């Protein structure tokens, strides 16, 4: 099966490319990239006016299966991913039961294969039951298919345990992802400490709690000589710690999520539970610092932290509402808005959403070089659409962007040389 993407603008920072060209895919691989390719027996996808880039990879999603299938399943999450232009996702282990043993890892991969849409890369727990005590069996988990370890959803409370994880991960070359949060400062909090906590009369989660936790991870990276990846950075002070660590030559990478550069704590005013997320939406100063960090390279990647919740968890008192919001189908236009505003370039956007995630988790993809997997995202940077519940494919609709007019949308999502999502055919 051959696919020829004709007439698009190819943006591939992995080879420094930004030019009009055609792209030929065959047997699940990229086979040619050149202007005016002709191929008689290929299925032709017209890409005039569209951007063609290496498939987007989301480092951080919650697909809720096994255990909370009423919120999302691997099948519905995969559909949301490909509809949002993602060809691969890394799913966090805080399911029920958590992904702390090879059996759960294999179950996730089986469900992903049945869904047959995007690639699903399981992230396993750092500690058994995410209790922060005993390390999981990194060796067997890796063999079963885990690509990284994280206790995401909660931090590893003790520095000594995190140290062991960073050391032990070296045996298996497993990336370690840290959910950086100083629990003794954030416990009982529901919104950012500052304007939101004062206005809403809720306990706050101070920005410095994130920075303290990031600083600990950075110091442990130095101590152990292992790389550490910081999930969902939301604060100016956190960014500053990472910037200084990178300047000092330490092996630290970081991601942020679209809501941290698109929204501030004001989105929670009025007790809007769809804007309740951990880490919380922060101040305008923090939001700007995140933009700057995306621009200057302090933050390496954009990940959605897609966290579906049903009305059972969200249509209730704010303090009782669950943390988390969905992001797979709004990430691309929100990132494109940064391009529109001149904060980042289009190649930088592709770097943040594809090349860097592949590099951080050592995944195939993130490139359109010949021989790379044929994972390709084709999007229309101009397409205008309005976020409504009906437009979203995720099983849950807990988006703080409902009602927003967006600009930019995936047109074709191709995984392993197969068109798994097409907006053109949906329309015709």
């Amino acid at each position, binding site marked *: 099966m051959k696919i020829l993407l004709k007439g698009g603008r190819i943006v591939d920072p992995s080879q420094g490319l930004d030019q009009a060209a055609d792209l030929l895919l065959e047997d699940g691989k990229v086979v040619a990239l050149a202007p005016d390719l002709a191929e008689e027996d290929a299925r032709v996808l017209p890409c005039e006016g569209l951007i063609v880039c290496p498939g987007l990879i989301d480092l951080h999603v919650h697909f809720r299966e096994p255990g909370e299938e009423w919120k999302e399943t691997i099948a519905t999450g995969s559909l949301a991913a490909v509809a949002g232009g993602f060809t691969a996702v890394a799913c966090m282990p805080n399911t029920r039961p958590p992904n702390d043993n090879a059996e759960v890892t294999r179950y996730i991969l089986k469900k992903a294969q049945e869904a047959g849409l995007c690639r699903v890369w399981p992230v396993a727990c750092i500690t058994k039951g995410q209790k922060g005590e005993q390390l999981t069996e990194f060796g067997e988990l890796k063999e079963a298919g885990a690509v990284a370890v994280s206790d995401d959803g909660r931090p590893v409370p003790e520095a000594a345990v995190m140290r062991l994880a960073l050391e032990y991960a070296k045996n298996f070359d497993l990336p370690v992802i840290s959910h950086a949060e100083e629990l003794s400062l954030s416990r009982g909090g529901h919104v950012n400490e500052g304007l939101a*906590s004062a206005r809403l*009369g809720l306990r706050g989660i101070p920005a410095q709690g994130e920075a303290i936790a990031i600083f600990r991870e950075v110091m442990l990276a130095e101590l152990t000589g292992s790389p550490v990846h910081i999930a969902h950075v939301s604060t100016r002070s956190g960014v500053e710690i990472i910037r200084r660590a990178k300047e000092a030559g330490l092996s630290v990478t970081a991601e942020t999520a679209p809501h941290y550069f698109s929204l501030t704590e004001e989105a929670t005013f009025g007790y809007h539970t769809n804007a309740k997320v951990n880490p919380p939406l922060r101040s305008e100063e923090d939001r700007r610092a995140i933009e700057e960090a995306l621009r200057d390279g302090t933050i390496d990647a954009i990940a959605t932290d897609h966290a579906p919740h049903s009305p059972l968890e969200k249509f209730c*008192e704010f303090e009782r509402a669950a943390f988390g919001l969905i992001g797979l189908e709004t990430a691309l236009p929100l990132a494109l808005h940064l391009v529109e505003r001149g904060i980042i370039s289009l190649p930088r956007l592709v770097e943040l959403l594809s090349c860097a995630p592949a590099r951080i988790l050592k995944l195939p993809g993130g490139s359109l070089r010949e021989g790379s997997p044929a994972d390709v995202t084709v999007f229309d940077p101009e397409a205008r659409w309005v976020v409504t519940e009906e437009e979203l494919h995720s099983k849950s609709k807990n988006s703080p962007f409902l009602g927003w007019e967006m600009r930019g949308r995936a047109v074709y999502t191709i995984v392993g040389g197969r068109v798994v999502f097409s907006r053109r055919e949906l329309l015709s």
Partner: protein
Amino acid sequence: MEFFHRHILDISAFTPEDISYILNTAENLKEILSRPIPKVPTLRGKLVAHLFFEPSTRTRLSFERAAKTLSADVFNLTARMSSVEKGETLLDTVLNLKAMGADLFVIRHPMAGAPHFIARATETRVINAGDGFHAHPTQALLDMLTVREKKGTLSGLKVAIIGDIRHSRVAHSNICGFRKMGSEVFVSGPATMLPPEREALGARVCYRLEEALKDADVVMALRVQKERHGRELFPSLREYAREFGLNAQKLALAREDCLLMHPGPINWGVELHPELENDPRSVILEQVTNGVAVRMALLVLLLGGGA
């Protein structure tokens, strides 16, 4: 002037004109309470549901007195007798009461924003009778009514609020209300219970108690609520009384004609020295009477019936 608010959730939603209008209405209705038979038929046939998910005696009784004076029917649901503990959600509870014909919910809830949620989810009128650390608008209104009665105005006054400002809905609503009406608000107390200035909703934060009390027109002591915090925010009640409790000597820093207020119930010997019990500056019992008048005003304004 017309009152178009459907709910009383938070003082911040009101303009100074709204507040004056509520206080005027309360002043007019207050007269009813001193009649030999303090009852009028204004809200006959209306059903007011009181939902108290937190222990409260005086606020609940005050609302009940207000509703019954206006001849409304009253449901009283308190946390202990409610099915909430059996796992029923707040939403189910209020939807059931709405189905039984409740016209208005009065809600006291330990979670900030719970009354807002109910207002949005049920489209029934809601009065917030205190939500978490967030707001206690009826308390602020009765406090403003009391001060306006005594001082003739709410503008240009210095109001000092002493105690746990950070975790006090009474403080939050009073700061908001008095500032809207043109007064300056100073807050003081243990620094572990004071917000940083940028989060103080426009109040001046004083780490020296004297600074807040100096030449104050109104001095409001807050109840020390040890149960509000997961951990102790000050070393001992003894130290609190010594450093932040009000006594005659500290009160002498305020203006001679200052008003001493407290939202109740009082921990005598902690936030207030017993020597102030019969102090002529105290308007604490007037606050209680005005509480009924303000709540009558809000019921009339929300449920119509004409005053």
